[in-house]
């Protein structure tokens, strides 16, 4: 059985979607879901590390993340049945006025791969919707993405909305191609990450 778990981890690292899915489907029949999850997390962890070290690039991370996404879909009901729900919840979305989601989806996949419960609100999300989702899901972190210089100000208004509410202490992290640490500081975000792999580390720090 350990062999199969190792094979799953390897398949995730190499982004072999079909192999990873077949292995997961086989493993869930007999193996405890916690162990399968650990194999997935460990595979994605390695991908994230190599990405940070510039050993691999976005295309390969996307391929690996998608492989893991398919496996998680199979695994999630088993995890829920075993009472193994993630400890932390993150609400994430692309801010109002912006329809870009590839970068955001990559972060969502990597966060799931690091065992966060991620509530993905999609694109063009107004501040009120972020507020309601954070409240409803008792989220620990709010993650905002923007790909356009013209929509970055919507990050600011979303943060203002949170800070002026009963959820003013929510940890907010921001990212996206035009966003910088300086901008994050200016609008009062708790953290900024320049790429998807650092976003996972940042999220861990913010809940730690």
């Amino acid at each position, binding site marked *: 059985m350990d062999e199969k778990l190792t094979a799953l981890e390897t398949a995730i690292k190499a982004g072999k979607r079909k192999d990873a899915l077949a292995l997961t489907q086989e493993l869930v029949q007999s193996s405890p879901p916690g162990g399968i999850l650990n194999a997935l997390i460990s595979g994605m962890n390695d991908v994230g590390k190599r990405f940070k070290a510039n050993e691999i690039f*976005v295309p390969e991370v996307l391929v690996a993340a998608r492989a893991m996404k398919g496996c998680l879909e199979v695994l999630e009901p088993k995890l829920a049945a075993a009472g193994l729900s993630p400890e932390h919840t993150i609400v994430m979305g692309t801010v109002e006025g912006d329809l870009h989601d590839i970068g955001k989806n990559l972060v969502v996949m990597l966060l799931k791969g690091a065992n966060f419960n991620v509530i993905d609100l999609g694109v063009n999300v107004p501040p009120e919707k972020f507020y309601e989702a954070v409240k409803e899901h008792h989220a620990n972190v709010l993650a905002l993405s923007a790909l356009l210089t013209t929509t970055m100000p919507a990050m600011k208004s979303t943060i203002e909305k949170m800070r002026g509410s009963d959820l003013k202490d929510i940890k907010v992290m921001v990212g996206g191609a035009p966003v910088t640490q*300086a901008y994050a500081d200016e609008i009062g975000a708790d953290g900024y990450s320049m790429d998807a792999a650092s976003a996972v580390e940042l999220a861990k720090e913010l809940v730690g």
Partner: protein
Amino acid sequence: MHTITLSNCVGKNLSVCLREHGFSVRRSCGGRGICRSCEVDILSGSVKERGQLRGVGQRVRACQCVVDSACLVVDTGQSADLIAHVEEAFTVLRPWPESGETLFAKARGNCALAVDIGTTTVAVKLFGTHTGISLAGAGALNAQTQVADDVLSRIEACAQAGGLERLQSLVLQTIHQLAQTCLDKAQRDWGDLGAMIVAGNTTMGHLFWGEDPTPMGKAPFTPRFTHTRRGDGAALLPEWAGIEVLSLPHMSAFIGADISAGLWAADFFEAQGVCVLMDIGTNGEIVLKTPQGIFSASAAAGPAFEGYGLSSGMRAKEGALESVRIKGGHLQTRTIANAPMIGICGSGYVDFLAEGARAGWLSEHGRFTENAPVLVHETHGRCVVLGGDEKAPVVVSEADIANLLKAKSAIAATLLTLLDKATLSPSDLDSVFVAGGFGKHIDAENAISCGLLPDVPVARIFYLGNASLGGACAVALDKAALPALERDIATVQTIAVNLEPSFEDHFIDEMGLNKMGENQ
């Protein structure tokens, strides 16, 4: 590494100085200091970045710096200047109008000017209003690049007081100077020029007329107008009084009059079977005609195939590597004009990707294999050296390949998503029209094998060159053209591809070195 020495620039903005020295600094955020696209390394001398003194060895954002020392040497990181090539040549595929009235029958004089306003460059063609005979052509950098590089940053600039007026004035001046150049070349004067027919993307169209483009900066991306506009030139520049100015209709915020004109030049609506028009650029516009309808979308490809953001990227000019073959494990390279190699242009990159995969140097994910002569360079990382010398090697790095694959994938995934709307695959395409300067020099077989162009017999691929300019000329020569074009483009549906369910899967599938749609 590309060093630029600036002398006697004390007190001036560094990005402006670099531009004056011929290096087109990229400023994705419009010079607001919130992105890193204009970063340079200081090799000698000093600057003040937002008031802070910076010196040797420090990396600064050029747009935020004032030159502080009489002599300043910076490394711009790019191997060569990247001021874009202006494409003036075009091929019009539709038949010459048989007879009848031309569009500007009542205009004064006997010359008309077709204008293609590109975000980066502006190209014009002076022609006989009634004869269609070309009299002169000219092209130049769009002076709006002084304010910001890309469409979004220009929209952003209009949110500030006076921004719109400044951008409008800059583009009108660019056109005015090009018109003057053409009139001089053709030995005509302003009294001979009776009409001007203008095409450009939707934002350029707004800026030309002084219309506020800011609603196009965020969803739902609503343009102020898309229709054909005409008026007397006096409303734009006093010197243009008496000139009939007409701008072609746009389709949406992202599919502009340049594409409308391109469709006309390609005779797209009359072409047989399933066909596609692709404009491969920073914003890759795609229009697909199928029995189920005509769909259009724009792909945010980014400027990688224009050489931006790559270790040794440059535009197609003397000294650019334009062709690569790998035979028996050995590189065979050719540069434009056979000059010493200083960088790599789009066609060179396409060749390298395809040949590299074929020779087993590159894995399916675009990583170098053990077969490739890889070395680890201190700034470029794992790379293959194609030329240059020890001080300034011309290289392709793994990071470059990842950038190119992302750009390719955005274009391919957009086309595949549109094909899905009609349950078609790339091999169903009867004609592929390639607009823009990109197509001319690329090896079609290699573009197909790395998945940038759809896998169809090469005879089905047609290069249009500057189809925006060509289409504008063609519309002017036939009075019946404009109503027909307006009717035809009204049938084109704009699709926000990234909201289509299949887009993300295609985007990831196309990240590899595969033919388009091969990984499905």
